[in-house]
């Protein structure tokens, strides 16, 4: 890296409040790549939970807050494909009847990147020099994979971690059943789905299930924990930062 580029963290609310170590790992990786990282600490949530539940007015208010905070940022990086999908794609749905706002959210969406997408596609880096001793399987999150078409990037980064064994689980790209409020409103269906996911993870023989979205991983961890499985969930940033799962 010739000059120190500036990146601004857009931290998923689940990461901020439940998995702060994921954002710390992200900072370690980005700083390790020679970037200057900043983080507006008044950020809260991008509004996706409300949007997915159909409460567009509420989501619009959250989006306006997001725009106020991040509009000055040059490059925005987030540890969640789902949140990036919200900002990049759904903000445009929210403001489709407001040309001025639409232009602003479009511009901000173009500067917002998912963590692995930023490293691989923008920085052109596929090996961050990480090392991890363990067997890892990758869960391809739906919004990341199908809506942002990001799959090659995290897999390339994982493949370059030294000492790590990567194993493919059955149906790696199948939904874990989270779906936001769906998981609570239709908990029986959600549980049936995450049960399949967890069984596939366990059957892969991996010690760790890695992913790019703590929403899915929180759901998966919830069932692994209930089943008292020793398999751990890890955000890809933690693996790339060389964090141990012990």
């Amino acid at each position, binding site marked *: 890296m010739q000059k120190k580029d500036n990146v601004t963290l857009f931290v998923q609310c689940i990461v901020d409040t439940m998995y702060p170590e994921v954002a710390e790992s992200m900072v370690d990786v980005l700083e390790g790549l020679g970037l200057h990282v900043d983080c507006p600490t008044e950020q809260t949530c991008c509004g996706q939970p409300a949007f997915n539940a159909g409460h567009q007015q509420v989501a619009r208010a959250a989006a306006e807050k997001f725009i106020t905070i991040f509009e000055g940022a040059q490059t925005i990086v987030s540890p969640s494909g789902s949140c990036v999908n919200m900002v990049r794609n759904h903000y445009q749905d929210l403001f489709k009847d407001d040309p001025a706002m639409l232009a602003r959210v479009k511009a901000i969406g173009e500067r917002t990147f998912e963590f692995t997408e930023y490293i691989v596609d923008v920085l052109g880096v596929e090996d961050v020099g990480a090392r991890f001793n363990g067997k890892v399987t990758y869960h391809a999150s739906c919004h990341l994979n199908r809506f942002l078409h990001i799959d090659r990037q995290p897999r390339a980064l994982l493949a370059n971690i030294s000492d790590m064994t990567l194993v493919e689980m059955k149906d790696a790209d199948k939904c874990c059943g989270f779906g936001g*409020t769906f998981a609570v409103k239709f908990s029986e269906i959600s549980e049936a789905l995450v049960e399949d996911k967890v069984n596939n993870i366990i059957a892969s023989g991996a010690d760790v299930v890695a992913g790019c979205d703590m929403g899915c991983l929180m759901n998966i961890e919830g069932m692994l924990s209930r089943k008292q499985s020793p398999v751990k969930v890890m955000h890809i940033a933690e693996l790339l930062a060389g964090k141990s799962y012990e």
Partner: protein
Amino acid sequence: MSEITSAEYKKVAVDSIADPVLQSALESLQSRLGPATQNLYQNLPEGQELRKTAHGYRRKAIDNLDILLEALADNVEKNGGTVHFAATDKEAVDICLNIARDHDVKKVVKGKSMVTEEIGLNHALEEAGIDVAETDLGEFIIQLADEKPTHIVAPAIHKTRQQVGKLFSEKLGTPYTEDPPTLTFDARKALREKFLTADMGITGCNLACAETGHITTVSNEGNIRMSTTLPKVHVAFMGMERIVANLEEQQSILRLMSMGAAGQQIGGYVSYIGGPAAENHCDGPQAFHLIIVDNGRSKILADEEFREMLCCIRCGACLNVCPVYGKIGGQAYGSAYSGPVGAVVTPLLFGVNNAADLCTGETLCGACRQACPLEINLPRMLLALRAKLSEGDAKWGVQPKGKSEKLMFEAWQKIIKRRKVYDLFLKIGYVLQKILPAQDGMIRRLPFPFNGWTNNRNLKPLAAKTFMQRWKEREGGKQ
């Protein structure tokens, strides 16, 4: 006329999840068809672009529906057929009943048709004293069993061969067997009798062609072809959106439809039907009627947000990949249309409030859109339906659903608006979560209304310090 039971979505879903026979049938269906369809898309001779192009054909047809329907009607009539336009389900059924009366029809054989299920045709015919026989093997089985379909294309996958054996021996009087070829032969024998004695054949229409004035039917059992050729009257029903401009477009879409429906390059029997038998021609029906059904489609057409739904050709590809459908099966959706397509089309046709759970009961994973041969954006329309449900909509006559969720989200919005307030609530949450039952540092039971989460899984508790706090401390330490 037809009624839906979508209000039972959750209840039937729970029962279905607990049914091991259904679970194994759904798993086998999805693991077979989902990948088969993807494989065909990957190997299209025209390349992946064909799906986008075909979406364009459909979209163009929908945008010019009035012109195309008029051309179709003119051309069908030139070919000697009769065209009827039905505004409602009742009108469609009445037209068919009148045709049956005119021809003194006592027995009907039917090819599989979704739109006739939508309008409740079988029931009306039976009420009029007409014997109706479904001739698709799966439909035949569920008609005998008096059950609802589990899948748009494969309606009887929830039945085991033992159950079918028992059913056939009871209803057809054949000796009990669970050998599928023998059972198929028993069905064939019973159905041949029906074909030869029927006065009227009723089918759907996969896709009509405006320029030539013919409809197409696709099947893998040859039963639809027999329904259209053996009886003296053929009545075809089509949803008014099932049309394209020309043969070239029709051909591309029928191929994609076969890929989506059954993982085939093209269906086993594709029939192009352009009217009754010509004069002095001994084969084919003496009369051909095409009933073009609106039944709510004009309303969808008029709304830009949902117009894309009219591009759907009901192939069922979305069912073969949907994780939710893969667990709950088709009956939970409560209408003729199940799976992701049902979740969008049932609310639009039968009322959003009547099918509220269908709009919200998906994970928005996007697998349906990826599997759709026409790449129809179902998740986008599910989100639009949810917005109508949450905020109400006069045009669609939607009453906003329960106030409590709305109040909760509005309160949440106030909390996330200011970081200081947000932090305060997080602190309170952090303290309160300590009184909740725990397991290995995870929350084991959440209070109402979040308790659904913890029936079978735990939840990570809130961290003692948010990342933002940690960041502030770090940055503070630097100075």
